[in-house]
C-alpha cells in the first residue's frame, strides 16, 4: 500500500508531452502572425542644437508684478469691443487647445453624428520616443495636442524631438532632435505638451523663419525652428535656442522646465514654465515672460507673488496653456498655487493672484483683473487649464464670458472683460482645521459658484463603495473612520490617516479644460471623481514614514517646511476605489442657463487589463474637442479608447482602441477637402502605467 503518490509513469509523461507539444504548436498557428506589426520608430536626422544659449538677459524687461487684484478695463466700454465670433469662419487647430480662445471647436461638418460610425483609421505614426521607466530613462508622459498649420502636423515628443508630418498620409517631412537631457529634473517623468506655431502677418519672400514652430524642454530651453525646413532660426535668441533658465534668479532649486509650449498671441510668445511640486518650501516664484516671436527678446515679465512673498515662498506659476482675446488685448492666465503646496505657514499674508484666473494686458503685462478661486491654497488646487472664452446669451443679453474649470469640479463663469460674475459666486465659510498644524492660518471663506452646479457633488463626504469595502475586508470603512473630514476644503492634518479630500489634485477637471460649441452655446467638459488622502508629518515622523513616491502620489518632503506629506488615492489593497462610482463623467451644459443638458459616465476603468463596467466610468486626463457636425471627440480614459459622442444626446457613437490613454485634446482639421481627427496616445502614469508613442488619425472613407 503506497503511502504517497508515486511519479507518473514515463510512458504517460511522454504521451502527455507529445500532446502538449502538438497542442502548443496548433495554438501558435492559430495565433495571428503579425503580432509585432507596429510601425518602427523613426530616427532623428537633424543636427544637435546648441544648448549653451547666451546668458545675457534682455534689457527691455519691464516688471509687471502686482500685489493686488485690480479691475481696469482701460476706460473702454464693453459694447465698443468686437467680440469672439459666435461661430468661427475658419477651421483652425494651430495651438494646444485648437484656438486661442480655447474652445476646442471646429466648424467642420463633414463628419457628423450620423456618419461618425464610419470613421476609419487613415494613418498612424509611432515616434519611438517612449519609456515605461523600467530602465535608465524615466517614464514618458505625452500630453501633446497635434498642431495643424502650414499644411503640416507638428508634434513634440517626451524625448524632446520635434516632428513634422504630412497631414494626409502621416509621412515624416522632417524631424529635429534637441539633444535635451532625458533626466527627470523637475517632474518624476519625461513630459511634453507639444509645440506652438507662429507665422508672420507680412512674410518676407525668400527669408527663412517666416513661419516658426517652438518647443521647450525640461532643462529650460526653448527651441525655434523654421516650420518649412526644421532648421534652427538663427535670429531667435542664441541661434535658435533661448535659455529660459537665465531668468531663474530666485530660489533656483530646479530649472524652469518648459514642458508646455508658449502661447502665441500675435507676435508675442507668452511663456510659462513648470517646476517640481511638493518638494520645497522655497522654490522659483511664478513668472510669465512675453517674448518677441521672431527674436526671442523679452518684452515684459509678470510675477504672481509680491516681492516679500517671493523671498519666503515660490511658484504660483503658469504651467499649462493660456487663452487670449486679441480683439480686446487680454491674456488669461491659469495661475497655480504657491509653495509649499500643503502647508502655508510661510505665506500667511494674502496672495491674491495665486490659484487664480488673471487677465493681463497683452502689450504691457499689467493686471487688468484677477479672480482668486482658492484663498490660501493648502490643497494644490492649481488652476490647471486655460479658461475657455465664449460669447453667451444669458437672460437675453449677450455676455463676453469665460469659463474657468478647476480641480474641485467647479466652473466659474465671469465676464472676460471685467472679471465680474455672470452667475453669482458666493464666499462661504469653510473648515478651520483641527489645530494640529503649527503656524498655519486658514482662509475663513472660499468662493463657491451658484451656477453651473459643481460637476461632482463635493458638498458631502463621499459614500463608501460596498463592493470595494467587502473585497478589502472592511479596509475602506476603517480608512474612512481614520480620516478627518469636515466638508469641502478640510485642511491637511497630522492626525490619523490625514484629511479626506474630494476631489484633490488629481480630480475634477485637468488641463484638457472646457470645450464649447458656439452654435448651441453648449459647454462640454470631462471630470474625474477621485478621493485622495493628505497627511502631514513633522520632520522626525516624516523621515521614519517616508517610503517613496510615484507620479503625483506617495511621500513628498516639502523641504524647509516643518511638515512633509503623504498623498494617496483612497483605494483598497487591490487598487479598487473606496468611493462609489462613477469615477469619471462627460458633462454637457447649456451656457445660456447654466443647467446640465446631459451627463454620462465616460470610458471604462481598467486594472491589470480587466475592464470595469462602463457605467462606472473612468477617471480622465485630457479633454474633448467638438465640431459643427454635432460630434464630441475625446480620449482621456483609462481604457485607452478614443470615442465620439453625440453633442445632442451624449450617446456614444464610435470608438477605437489606442496604444495608451490619450491625455490631451484631439485635433480636428481639414486637408485637401477632407476632414480629419487626430489623437496622440501617449499615456500618463497618474492615470495608469501605460505609455505610448502613437499619433493616430481618422477620417471618413473616400468615395
Amino acid at each position, binding site marked *: 500500500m503506497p503511502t504517497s503518490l508515486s511519479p507518473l509513469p514515463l510512458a504517460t509523461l511522454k504521451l502527455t508531452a507529445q500532446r502538449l507539444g502538438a497542442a502548443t504548436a496548433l495554438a501558435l498557428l*492559430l495565433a495571428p502572425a503579425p503580432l509585432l*506589426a507596429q510601425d518602427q520608430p523613426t530616427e532623428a536626422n537633424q543636427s544637435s542644437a546648441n544648448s549653451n544659449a547666451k546668458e545675457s538677459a534682455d534689457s527691455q524687461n519691464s516688471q509687471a508684478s502686482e500685489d493686488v487684484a485690480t479691475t481696469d478695463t482701460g476706460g473702454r466700454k464693453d459694447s465698443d469691443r468686437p467680440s469672439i465670433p459666435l461661430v468661427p469662419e475658419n477651421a483652425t487647430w494651430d495651438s494646444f487647445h485648437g484656438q486661442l480662445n480655447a474652445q476646442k471647436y471646429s466648424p467642420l461638418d463633414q463628419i457628423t453624428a450620423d456618419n461618425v460610425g464610419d470613421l476609419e483609421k487613415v494613418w498612424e505614426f509611432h515616434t519611438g520616443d517612449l519609456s515605461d521607466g523600467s530602465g535608465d530613462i524615466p517614464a514618458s508622459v505625452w500630453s501633446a495636442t497635434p498642431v495643424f498649420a502650414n499644411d503640416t502636423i507638428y508634434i513634440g515628443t517626451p524625448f524632446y524631438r520635434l516632428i513634422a508630418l504630412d497631414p494626409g498620409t502621416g509621412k515624416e517631412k522632417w524631424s529635429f532632435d534637441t539633444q535635451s537631457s532625458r533626466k527627470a529634473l523637475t517632474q518624476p517623468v519625461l513630459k511634453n505638451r507639444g509645440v506652438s506655431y507662429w507665422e508672420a502677418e507680412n512674410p518676407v519672400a525668400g527669408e527663412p523663419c517666416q513661419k516658426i514652430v517652438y518647443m521647450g524642454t525640461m532643462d529650460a530651453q526653448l527651441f525655434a525652428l523654421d516650420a518649412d525646413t526644421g532648421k534652427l532660426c538663427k535670429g531667435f535668441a542664441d541661434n535658435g535656442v533661448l535659455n529660459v533658465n537665465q531668468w531663474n534668479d530666485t530660489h533656483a532649486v530646479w530649472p524652469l522646465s518648459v514642458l508646455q509650449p508658449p502661447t502665441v498671441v500675435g507676435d508675442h510668445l507668452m511663456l510659462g514654465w513648470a517646476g517640481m511640486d511638493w518638494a520645497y518650501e522655497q522654490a522659483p516664484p511664478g513668472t510669465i515672460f512675453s517674448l518677441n516671436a521672431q527674436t526671442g527678446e523679452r518684452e515684459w515679465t509678470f510675477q504672481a507673488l509680491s516681492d516679500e512673498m517671493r523671498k519666503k515662498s515660490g511658484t504660483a506659476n503658469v504651467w499649462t496653456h493660456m487663452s487670449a482675446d486679441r480683439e480686446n488685448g487680454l491674456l488669461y492666465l491659469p495661475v497655480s498655487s504657491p509653495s509649499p503646496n500643503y502647508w502655508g505657514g510661510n505665506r500667511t499674508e494674502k496672495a491674491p493672484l495665486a490659484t487664480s484666473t488673471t487677465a493681463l494686458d497683452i502689450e504691457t503685462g499689467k493686471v487688468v483683473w484677477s479672480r482668486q478661486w482658492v484663498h490660501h491654497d493648502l490643497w494644490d488646487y492649481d488652476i490647471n487649464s486655460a479658461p475657455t472664452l465664449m460669447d453667451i446669451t444669458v437672460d437675453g443679453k449677450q455676455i463676453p464670458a469665460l469659463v474657468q474649470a478647476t480641480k474641485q469640479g467647479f466652473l466659474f463663469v465671469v465676464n472676460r472683460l471685467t472679471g465680474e460674475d455672470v452667475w453669482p459666486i458666493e464666499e462661504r465659510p469653510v473648515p478651520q482645521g483641527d489645530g494640529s498644524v503649527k503656524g498655519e492660518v486658514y482662509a475663513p471663506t472660499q468662493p463657491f459658484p451658484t451656477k453651473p452646479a459643481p460637476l461632482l457633488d463635493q458638498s458631502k463626504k463621499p459614500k463608501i463603495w460596498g463592493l470595494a469595502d467587502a473585497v478589502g475586508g472592511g479596509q475602506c470603512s476603517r480608512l474612512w473612520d481614520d480620516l478627518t473630514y469636515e466638508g469641502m476644503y478640510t485642511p491637511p492634518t497630522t492626525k490619523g490617516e490625514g484629511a479626506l479630500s474630494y476631489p484633490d489634485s488629481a480630480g475634477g477637471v485637468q488641463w484638457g479644460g472646457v470645450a464649447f460649441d458656439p452654435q448651441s452655446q453648449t459647454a462640454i467638459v470631462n471630470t474625474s471623481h477621485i478621493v485622495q488622502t493628505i497627511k502631514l508629518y513633522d520632520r522626525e515622523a516624516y523621515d521614519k514614514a517616508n517610503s517613496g513616491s510615484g507620479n503625483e502620489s506617495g511621500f513628498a518632503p516639502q523641504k524647509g517646511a516643518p511638515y512633509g506629506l503623504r498623498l494617496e488615492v483612497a483605494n483598497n489593497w487591490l487598487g479598487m476605489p473606496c468611493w462609489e462610482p462613477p469615477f469619471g463623467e462627460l458633462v454637457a451644459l447649456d451656457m445660456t442657463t447654466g443647467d446640465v443638458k446631459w451627463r454620462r459616465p465616460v470610458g471604462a476603468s481598467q486594472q491589470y487589463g480587466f*475592464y470595469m463596467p462602463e457605467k462606472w466610468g473612468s477617471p480622465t486626463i485630457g479633454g474633448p474637442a467638438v465640431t459643427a457636425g454635432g460630434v464630441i471627440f475625446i480620449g482621456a480614459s483609462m481604457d*485607452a479608447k478614443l470615442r465620439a459622442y453625440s453633442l445632442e444626446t451624449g450617446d456614444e457613437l464610435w470608438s477605437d482602441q489606442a496604444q495608451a490613454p490619450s491625455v490631451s485634446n484631439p485635433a480636428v482639421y481639414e486637408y485637401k477637402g477632407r476632414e480629419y481627427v487626430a489623437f496622440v496616445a501617449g499615456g500618463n502614469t497618474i492615470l495608469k502605467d501605460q505609455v505610448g508613442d502613437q499619433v493616430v488619425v481618422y477620417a471618413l472613407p473616400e468615395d
Partner: protein
Amino acid sequence: MFFGLMQYQRNAEAAAKCIKSLSSGDNNPMSQSRSFRAGIIVLLVGSLVGLAVSLYAYFAPLTGVNGTLGALAVILSTIALVVMTLVLAPLSCRSGRVVLRVLILLVLVGTGFAGLLLHQWWLTAAMVVGLIGLLLDMASPAASTTPAHS
C-alpha cells in the same frame, strides 16, 4: 482519528489505482467510445482556441490588454486547461477524473469570466465551447470508472 486514517487509506488506494491505470494499456484513446472522445476533443479545441486568443490578446498591439497581467493570466490558465485535458483523456479511474473535471470546470468558468472582463469575447466563447466538451465528456457512459476494452 481512526476514521480519518481509514479515509486516508481509501484515498491513497484510489490514487494508486489511478496511477496504475495511467501506466497500463487502458490509456489508449482508441479504447474510448466515440462520444467520450468527442467530448475531450471539443474540450481540447476550446482550450486551444482560448490559448490562441490569449496569446493574441497579450502580444498583438492595440488589443487593449496587450502586455497586461490579466492577459498573461489567461495564457497560463488556458495552458493549464490544455494540460488537464490531455491528462484527462487517458485517465480511467473515477476519482482522478472527478478531481480533474472539477478543476477544468473551475478554470473554464474563471477564464471565461476573465475573458469578459478583458473584453476578449472570443476567449469567453472558446470557454463555452470547452464547457460543452466537458459536459459531453461527463455525460458519456464510457467515462465510467471501468475502462473500455481494447
